[in-house]
């Protein structure tokens, strides 16, 4: 998955055999990636945690059916994306994202703050500003189409290669590149309106 080192084949085989220790090793190895993909796609820490745990439970249930020729990393990312898509639909039906406007106050660990975004590269040392920018970009991501958000999260945040993304989406690399470019341009336009 991305640039993370692959987990040993023997661990996966032990997990297939139902060994809990092997399963826990897999969780510890991939939890950060799965959790962050979920968080960037859903934009909520609690939902991301719950979803990531569901992903690993699904892995434990179905790893015995994993064919050897399928790479575990690709398979795990596919499960994560499927869970994210289902959860996104579920939350959208319940109007979960309706209040997610870029005009609203920014949620930070220190409470809500009025939105005043400037270029983070101007003063990268201001931690508060960095947090606000992170929240701001996160909310911008949520305004993208679902497939565009997935592409940006995988490529720009999780540093997947175009080849890996192509395999996940069953698309040629060239198509992945052009789609990613379109997603970035759309995000730029979304953020541009709110940056001074």
């Amino acid at each position, binding site marked *: 998955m991305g640039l993370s080192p692959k987990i040993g084949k023997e661990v996966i085989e032990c997990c297939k055999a139902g060994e809990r220790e092997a399963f*826990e090793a897999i*969780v*510890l190895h991939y*939890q*950060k990636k799965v*959790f*962050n993909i979920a*968080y*960037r796609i859903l934009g909520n*820490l609690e939902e*991301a*945690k719950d979803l*990531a*745990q569901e992903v*690993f*439970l699904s892995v*434990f249930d179905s790893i015995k059916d994993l064919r050897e020729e399928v790479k575990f990393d690709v398979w795990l990312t596919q499960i994560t994306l499927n869970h994210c898509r289902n959860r996104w639909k579920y939350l959208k039906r319940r109007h979960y994202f309706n209040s997610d406007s870029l005009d609203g106050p920014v949620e930070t660990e220190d409470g809500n703050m009025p939105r005043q975004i400037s*270029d*983070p*590269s101007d003063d990268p040392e201001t931690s508060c500003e*960095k947090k606000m*920018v*992170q929240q701001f*970009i*996160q909310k911008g991501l949520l305004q993208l189409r679902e497939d565009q958000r997935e592409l*940006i999260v995988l490529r*720009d*945040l999780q540093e997947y290669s175009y080849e890996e993304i192509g395999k996940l989406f069953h698309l040629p690399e060239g198509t992945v*590149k*052009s789609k*990613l*470019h379109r997603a*970035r*341009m759309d*995000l*730029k336009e979304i*953020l*541009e309106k709110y940056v001074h």
Partner: protein
Amino acid sequence: MDCEKVRDRFSSFLEDALDPLEEKVVKEHLTSCSDCQKNLQQFDKTVRWLHSLKDVEVPDGFLSEINRKMEERKRKVPFSLFPLKLPVQAVAMVAIVFLVLYLTKIIPIEIPHQKAAEHSKPSVSAPLPSKKEVDQVVAQTEARKDIVVPQTPPEPSSLSKVSPAAPEAEEMKPTWAKKEEAPAAAKPPQEITLRISDRERTLSLLHELLQRFGGKIITQEGNIFLASLPKATFSEFERELSELGSPGKADKMMLKKDGMGKLDVPGGAEQRAFETKGKERVTPQAEMKDYLLVQILLLPE
């Protein structure tokens, strides 16, 4: 190269993925187009912002929570033991189909039963002589001996409805209901006049006799008694009743019998059946379980 084509290459330009010729053309365009320059700056800033996003740390207890969830699921094993994982909708559909089949099978049976029950209700009340009618019978009997007690004929409509469904309805009713209905199916009263010398003794014997034959006194007006009695036991009852009269004066017991009474009464007793025009409409089923209304007139010597 126009602005749109240049902007389409921004990602590749920033990733140094353009071939040298394309890169040269894009650079030339950018030096001459301030809009595309500005656009590229914004694009670059957006990508840098994205790259500046750091991974969020996994919440504490992430793994232990997974283990807890696994344990919870293990406790729910009885559900997951089901070998077939059927969708809820499919199960619900099958259940509905079975319910419909069950109902369509049940309802056609129940409807006739309900109809039978409805139809049998009027027949229960119709043949029963009301208190007023009984009084009328008694009064007229006192007034004259050779009377024809008027009895309201059962309503033709109710009678005609009885025949097809009555047996079924009868079978479904509880025993107490049958008991209640027994007098209802009774024929018009028989009239027996009995000459007696000891009224008290005769009365006690009469009660005893009725009890023995499964009958009972319905009303009493002076020396006139209206009793109900199973038809099957009537002949025997009548014979024994005649013996209650004054000793050796059995011949004194007068049984009046009109031409319509068909009872074959031994011992020379006269009887009269108070039959009405509606009699022929009474169904055979009703006759089978007949109770007789017997009017007993005690005449002190």
